[in-house]
């Protein structure tokens, strides 16, 4: 069997290099075509008919006025009279027309009668959520009451982290062409392979009859796995029009309302601790919602999972809001925020440095050494010793400075993926996978792995992804892509190389297993002078093309060691809070992350920077705001659904633990873990700065002032 092991760190020539992303020029120059840029011949546009009520029964749908509108080309209703709509902006159907404006006009002309029903859209005050709260059982471990009695200090706090929207810059949507038998499908998706079957099932046609193609996706963050109602409706509208392509991309207000949210979470948490910082007991009553089905269930206590005495309840709250979708590190941001805030408050109650609490309790985590090492490194980079102060000794002046800690953990092992590697007689090499590049750099790392494996330059490799004509690859979620596609590519490339060795062994006068590919040559091991250039070697293929595949199977991957999962990370935030205006400014966010084998440090750093900036958005700005009376989203636009700008982020310090020990673990995904701890770190830094806990993120000026004035 071929040896697929990663070459030693010291001998690598392509893996580990700071290669610029291969599609960089294409994207920066505006040439990259996203599916929302597609302008197909004879293309129609469609627009949704949306429900204004958060909860209603459809009484009557009348499309007669719409049918008379200019450019009208048909309506496809997904719901019928009698159906119940459970959130505002629910898309009950789509209308097609010749132009986008005409489609919107015609959709607005569809008359729908509703019978409104009572709704609930808030879960931050459970007393107002009535029968929407579904109680759960109680989980008890150890002797909680005794532990609280014996404690040196007990802290209590209530913390709440709200619903966020994904706010992908490229809205959800697709271009679909469907003639009743076959479909050409160009979605904006994180799941090129899986979405083929998803649309096929909905259209009741064989998956083989759906062809999916997507070169680029303008953001997904966990919200773009399915064909969705708009994809399905477009297909029907296309069929209705003899297979003319139909395009739908949601307008921003609809996008922010129905195309995915991160669930909220709240918890009342009580902690018991000893003078030395040891946490002895945890008691929590938590709740969460992300829509009708109740939503998330944050794994608390987070990271510090071995606290001996526990009592926990959790309640799911059903709301008339659009459903949750996976949101970069599902449940983890909430869990990290709830846990780390409570730990920070316990430290304050004990009158000790929270760093001591985090270090002291590292033994109550699954990775004590990792967290101790990372806490110390993060403390050094954040100048913890110099800048941290007790909550009782605030910095002078109206602008107060503070530091806070957040931690993370994640899996990140590779998903199932198959790579096809073609070596052509002219020496050109293709690597093909039905994968997708979310902007994480998937294309680039595939090329680096193939180049490393074949002894070629990165520029010698042509990477082809984003198409169902290529072998299947997993969806890009949960930081599983880099491990999956890298391992599959490695195996496919080695398998192809073995075939090439067999082809040229005779002319090099050595057995195939004595050949190696180095620096664009095939040479005899130990006798590098006996060699063929890559091109000359490939010429010996004549009319043949070598085509080999390699597969990553998550069931066998742990044995093979090419990829693995399980990381820790620590973040420290350094903020300044203006106590007169309530404005929080980022000074610095330090992220220390272990990561396994790093294929491309430049791209990996970008992931961490981006994750940190997302945390800043989540800690200081982002929040979906619902209107109690109308049940609609009040800030379904980008003016009032705030994201951080270039000036809002302070300095970001990224420390990746790249060393032989980590490297030996194989490749581990990096998308989620650095997006977890930042919100907690910032919330704790604000508490440190002003000496009081602002219990609700985002830490907007009004909340900070309310806390300072005792109104919270």
């Amino acid at each position: 069997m071929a040896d697929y092991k990663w070459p030693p760190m010291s001998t690598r020539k392509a893996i580990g290099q700071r290669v610029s992303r291969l599609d960089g020029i294409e994207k920066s120059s505006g040439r990259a075509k996203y599916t929302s840029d597609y302008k197909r011949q004879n293309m129609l546009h469609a627009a949704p008919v949306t429900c204004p009520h958060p909860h209603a029964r459809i009484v009557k749908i009348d499309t007669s006025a719409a049918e008379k509108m200019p450019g009208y080309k048909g309506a496809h209703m997904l719901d019928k009279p009698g159906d119940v709509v459970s959130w505002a902006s629910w898309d009950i159907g789509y209308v097609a027309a010749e132009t986008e404006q005409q489609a919107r006009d015609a959709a607005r002309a569809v008359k729908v009668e509703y019978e409104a029903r009572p709704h609930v859209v808030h879960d931050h005050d459970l007393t107002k959520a009535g029968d929407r709260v579904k109680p759960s059982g109680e989980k008890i471990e150890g002797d909680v009451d005794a532990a609280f009695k014996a404690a040196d200090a007990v802290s209590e706090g209530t913390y709440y982290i709200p619903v966020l929207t994904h706010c992908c810059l490229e809205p959800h949507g697709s271009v679909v062409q469907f003639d009743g038998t076959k479909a050409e499908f160009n979605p904006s998706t994180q799941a090129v392979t899986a979405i083929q079957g998803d649309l096929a099932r909905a259209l009741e046609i064989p998956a083989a009859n759906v062809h999916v193609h997507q070169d680029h996706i303008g953001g997904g963050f966990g919200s773009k796995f399915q064909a969705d109602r708009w994809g399905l409706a477009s297909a029907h509208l296309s069929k209705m029009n003899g297979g003319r392509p139909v395009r739908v991309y949601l307008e921003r207000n609809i996008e922010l309302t129905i195309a995915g949210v991160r669930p909220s979470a709240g918890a009342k948490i009580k902690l018991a601790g000893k003078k030395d910082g040891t946490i002895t007991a945890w008691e929590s009553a938590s709740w969460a919602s992300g829509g009708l089905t109740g939503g998330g269930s944050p794994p608390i206590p987070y990271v510090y999972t071995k606290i001996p005495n526990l009592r926990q309840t959790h309640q799911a709250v059903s709301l008339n809001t659009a459903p949750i979708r996976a949101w970069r590190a599902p449940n983890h941001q909430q869990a990290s925020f709830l846990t780390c805030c409570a730990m920070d408050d316990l430290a304050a109650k004990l009158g000790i440095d929270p760093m001591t609490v985090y270090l002291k309790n590292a033994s109550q985590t699954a990775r004590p050494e990792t967290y101790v090492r990372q806490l110390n490194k993060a403390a050094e980079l954040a100048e913890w010793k110099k800048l941290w102060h007790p909550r009782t000794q605030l910095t002078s002046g109206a602008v107060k400075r503070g530091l806070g800690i957040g931690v993370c953990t994640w899996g990140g092992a590779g998903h199932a993926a198959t790579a096809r590697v073609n070596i052509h007689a002219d020496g050109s090499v293709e690597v093909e996978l039905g994968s997708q590049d979310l902007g994480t750099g998937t294309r680039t790392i595939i090329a680096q792995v193939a180049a490393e494996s074949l002894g070629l330059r990165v520029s010698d490799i042509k990477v082809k992804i984003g198409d169902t004509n290529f072998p299947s690859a997993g969806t890009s979620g949960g930081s599983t892509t880099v491990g999956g596609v890298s391992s599959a590519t490695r195996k496919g490339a080695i398998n192809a190389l073995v075939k090439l060795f067999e082809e040229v062994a005779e002319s090099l006068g050595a057995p195939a297993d004595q050949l190696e590919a180095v620096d664009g040559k095939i040479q005899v091991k130990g006798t590098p002078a006996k060699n063929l250039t890559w091109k000359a070697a490939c010429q010996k293929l004549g009319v043949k093309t070598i085509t080999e595949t390699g597969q990553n199977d998550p069931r066998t991957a742990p044995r093979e060691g090419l990829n693995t999962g399980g990381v820790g990370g620590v973040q420290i935030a350094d903020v300044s809070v203006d106590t007169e205006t309530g404005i929080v400014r980022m000074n610095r966010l330090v992220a220390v992350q272990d990561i396994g084998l790093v294929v491309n440090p430049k791209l990996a750093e970008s992931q961490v920077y981006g994750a940190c900036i997302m945390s800043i958005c989540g800690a200081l700005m982002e929040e979906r705001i619902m209107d109690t009376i109308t049940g609609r989203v009040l800030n379904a636009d980008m003016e009032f659904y705030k994201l951080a700008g270039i000036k809002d982020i302070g300095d970001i310090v990224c420390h990746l633990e790249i060393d032989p020990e980590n490297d030996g673990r194989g490749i581990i995904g990096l998308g989620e873990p650095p997006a977890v701890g930042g919100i907690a770190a910032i919330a704790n830094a604000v508490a440190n700065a002003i000496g009081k806990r602002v219990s609700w993120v985002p830490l907007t000026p009004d909340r900070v002032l309310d806390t300072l004035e005792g109104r919270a």
Partner: protein
Amino acid sequence: MSQSKDPSREQTPTKPRGFSRRGFIHGVGVTGAVAPGLLQDSASAQTPAAVMGPGAVPITLNINGKMVKLSVEPRVTLLDALRNNLDLTGAKRVCDRGTCGACTVLLDGKVAYACSLLAIDVQGRKITTIEGFALEGGKPHPVVQAFVDHDAQQCGYCTPGFVVAAKGFLDTTPNPTMDQVKDGLGGNLCRCGTYVGVRAAVMDAASKMKGGRRG
């Protein structure tokens, strides 16, 4: 919060050349309501415009140095005209309300949001899109190259807008300080979080374009 750029405020001509959505909202925001007197004044100050629409009307735009004829409804924004009628898709439609800058173009050399301008209103103006300079002569513009070198992009959907904004900024501020970069690019939003790269890229592009001092 970062300061947003207001395209209508950055335009230098003394006479308003038409309504931008952003400018209109800005005006309303300041006064609380549009004073009837103001409307009359501005109406009488302009020559009466020919009534156009509501159907599609022929217009001519000067885009990337070429005169382009197209037919659009008067309500169509410059952004939608570029994307839907002319297949110039570097400018992206993201917020569609003058907030995020993904649709940034240059209007007579100044940075503007194409989602907030009507196509019929920018006739006679010099419109430069990313396609007009990014790969001129087959070579990446220094700003484009710097964005690649500093990995100032992830999903890339905001990136062309950032590149155009950066070019427009550097054309007027060739030797920026980092603080000026943060203000100058404050009118563009990124969701993936590429600002660290963007900061470095704009500073690097500045030094390469001018060979000048760093602030």
